[in-house]
């Protein structure tokens, strides 16, 4: 029973500044609040934020301009939330860490499911490495599936609440209050925070256009929350010992309902394919899994690729085993199909994906990425043209804390 594991953690209800209570589960045997001279790091993910939107968030722009900015930064395939958060915390890509997309087809269980189980991550995260080095860690993740995939790895874990219906995320004001309460109560060496509002408003913006009122409001609200967090670190004397990495997991693209792509119907027109494939839908990217005989796989995948490329709105189709540069691994299936900007996949049918804001395709690769904070380790006021990636977060944390790569290795680069 999971209760055995749960019993090794204690749940603490902490009252925040507003009087609201925040529930944290904490690993057993940890003493709170370290020395004042320690190093602190905060990874702040503004989910789904486009680089050009940072200027609409003055508090975020101030962090960018005061730190080390990587304006050419990009998300990595598949440009979805779970895989890019896992890349941030593992320093390596899906072929190694095991998490290629939000949704996968699990061949063992023969089901389409979210890749959100703690056991889906196959390598050590920087969270576990820091714990092993005697430091403490915290996760404050606004989305249910992020909360679950990172599981009980962190010393302190916030249980996102309230979760909004439909979006299954906690609003930034609650997430930030929880992060502040966690810092006040436990002061972990590393806190990994996901702010979901910008992404979730992006998904539910039904106008099909960017920067409409709801998105603008979300950016303004998130800006306030980031400001609260920074103010708290400054007023509590932690700023000078803090590194704050701000980035997005992916960008965002919008499509109108007429611009939906269904590969299911395209493939079903070929009788040799019917009923012998599964499609894991990831917004702007479809992962196609051949479920027929292995002797027919090669020809069938080639056929599906041809059919996909002949479908209006499709941008590219890559045979995963023949495209090692994707570093997606076997869990991603046989074929990766990207849509063009302004389109989205909707499988199995045209109504299956009603969300106008999507990501997963190359149009959604550009992300904000900067290393800021008061720590002397942070180079102030510079920008670098090198292409930073989500997987660079862990090597950056490793360089900061003096932690070396685990035996599984890192593929990213320190951006200190």
């Amino acid at each position, binding site marked *: 029973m999971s209760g055995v594991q749960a019993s090794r953690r204690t749940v603490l209800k902490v009252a925040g500044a507003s009087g609201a209570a925040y529930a944290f589960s904490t690993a057993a045997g940890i003493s709170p609040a370290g020395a004042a001279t320690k190093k602190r790091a905060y990874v702040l993910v503004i989910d789904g934020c486009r*680089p*050009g939107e*940072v*200027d609409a968030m003055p508090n975020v722009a101030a962090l960018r301009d005061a730190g080390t*900015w990587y*304006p*050419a930064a*990009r998300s990595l395939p598949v440009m979805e939330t779970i895989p890019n958060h896992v890349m941030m915390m593992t320093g390596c890509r899906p072929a190694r860490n095991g998490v290629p997309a939000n949704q996968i087809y699990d061949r063992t269980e023969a089901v389409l499911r979210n890749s959100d189980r703690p056991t889906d991550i196959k390598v050590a995260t920087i969270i576990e490495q820091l714990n092993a080095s005697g430091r403490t860690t915290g996760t404050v993740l606004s989305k249910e599936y992020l909360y679950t995939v990172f599981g009980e790895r962190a010393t302190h874990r916030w249980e996102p609440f309230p979760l909004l219906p439909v979006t299954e995320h906690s609003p930034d004001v609650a997430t930030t209050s929880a992060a502040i309460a966690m810092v006040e109560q436990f002061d972990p060496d590393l806190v990994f925070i996901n702010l979901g509002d910008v992404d979730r408003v992006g998904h539910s913006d039904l*106008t099909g*256009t*960017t*920067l*409409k009122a709801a998105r603008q409001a979300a950016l303004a609200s998130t800006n306030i929350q980031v400001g609260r967090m920074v103010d708290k670190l400054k007023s509590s004397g932690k700023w000078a010992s803090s590194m704050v990495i701000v980035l997005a997991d992916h*960008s965002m693209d*919008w499509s109108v309902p007429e611009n939906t792509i269904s590969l299911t119907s395209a493939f079903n027109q070929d009788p040799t394919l019917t009923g012998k494939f599964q499609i894991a839908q990831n917004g702007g990217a479809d992962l196609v899994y051949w479920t027929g005989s292995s002797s027919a796989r090669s020809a069938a995948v080639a056929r599906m690729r041809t059919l996909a490329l002949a479908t209006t709105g499709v*941008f590219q189709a890559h045979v995963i085993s023949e495209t090692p540069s994707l570093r997606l691994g076997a869990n991603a299936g046989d074929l990766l199909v990207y849509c*063009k*900007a*302004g389109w989205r996949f909707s499988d199995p049918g045209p109504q299956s994906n009603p969300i106008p804001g999507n990501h997963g*395709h*190359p*149009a*959604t*690769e*550009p992300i*904000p990425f900067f290393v800021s904070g008061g720590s002397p380790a942070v180079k102030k006021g*510079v*920008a*670098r*043209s*090198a*292409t930073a990636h989500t997987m660079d977060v862990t090597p950056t944390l490793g360089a900061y804390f003096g932690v070396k790569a685990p035996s599984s290795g890192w593929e990213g680069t320190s951006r200190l």
Partner: protein
Amino acid sequence: MPNAYFAHGVASGDPRPTSVVLWTRVTPTAASKPGSGQGPNVSVTWQVSTTSAFTTIAATGKVTTGPARDHTVKVDVTGLKPAAPYYYRFVYAATHSAVGRTRTAPAATTSPANLRFGVVSCANLQAGWFSSYRHLAKRNDLHAVLHLGDYIYEYGPGEYGYGNADVDIRKHEPAHEILKLADYRQRHAQYKRDVDLQALHAKYAFIHTWDDHEVADDAWKGGAVNHTEGVEGSFTARRAAAHQAFDEWMPVRMSGSAAPGDGDQIYRRLQFGDLAEITMLDLRTYRDKQLAAQVDPAEADPDRTITGRAQMDFLKDSLTRRVAQWKLVGNPVMIAPFTFAGLPQNLVDPVNDTAGLLPRDGVPYNVDQWDGYTDDRREVFETLRDNGVTDSLFITGDIHSGWACDLPADKATYLASRNSVGVEFVATSVTSNNLKDITGTPRRTTSVAVEETLKANNPHIKYLNFDDHGYSVLDITAKRAQMDWYILGDRADKNTSSTWTTSWATTAGSQTVRQVDAPVGA
């Protein structure tokens, strides 16, 4: 001091990390006049040094030249150090040329703190003095000069000059429209004797492309508006002559080499560390004919092209290959879409005259720009959008006016979406006529209403100045790209001054322009 042997000055161009093209023209005998085909074959020595006194020689060699190449000298010096200033000169008959200064590009793997370029286009010698070149030459902070074309004009005296009366401030040589190789050579030689142009060539390496007037007005692959087939010979032969003279007289690698006569491909790339890569385009040699007067559905015909297939693939590769943060495009004609709809009819003609071919009752857009080849533009913009390309920056000339524009992914929805795929900065002309010159009105009178109407109907156009001549300075860092516009007094005044007028920038990753309040330091 200029001397009889080296009367056309010295120049350098196309800087790469370890090489740069050096140029001069030697006049070994009085008879060896440009375009004459006269004079002996001679050997000219070139020298490169790290000091202006040439106390040590970093590289040297000899080049043989003669009447077959109009006594021009062009050498691709290799083995140089990256991001380094060099001095160069030529020697003939124990006489030194003027000393030129140049600078190699940063190594591909390095991260330069900034890049700063002078930006110029449209220098009609008959329309005035080249003060823009002189003012740029006074600066000490540039890495190179981008020349976006119309470096020479093909007209004879009286055909295209200063203002709406076409007064010739200076008269073109030869004194007729240039058609043949000897004509083009003489015209290039005349421009190269201009002291302001000589000063700028001697100070900085140029990165050139051509637009139409290096051959003839509104050129396309099979002809030009200012070419009458038969009466003026064949367009193919005329263009070949123009390209040959350009290859001889300009510090450019054509078809990848400094040797003349081995190909006339001028579209190419130059990389400046991981900060920027420049792709210089040729939008004349491969384009289909401009559309005629009426609104024509062929505007969007996918078979019509402004780039040609091979150059389009080259450009798309430039934009997506990710060797550098900023994808600069040296773009001879504007790519931002715009409509003249809403403009009063009495102003349409002069705007058309400035902006290019646009008949009186014709299409409400400029058919000589990318607006006349919308399927090619769609392909470029979709490439940028589908691949999530950031920081593509089109630097443009041709239209004798200053512009700063976003590049709307979809012009129809831009006002609501602000969805832009890149930005475009357009430099004004060195001398060639603009709107106020053609309407004959004082600056900042008639044009203001035109500019405001155009901006109102084209909300992605943020800055527009139809009145002034001058030059621009483009400064690029990892954080932003900024263009400063400098304007001149009267082009007819040889010593006219230059004034900063405005600056616009694009923040990295934003794909949108914003006004800034000061130019980069001179």
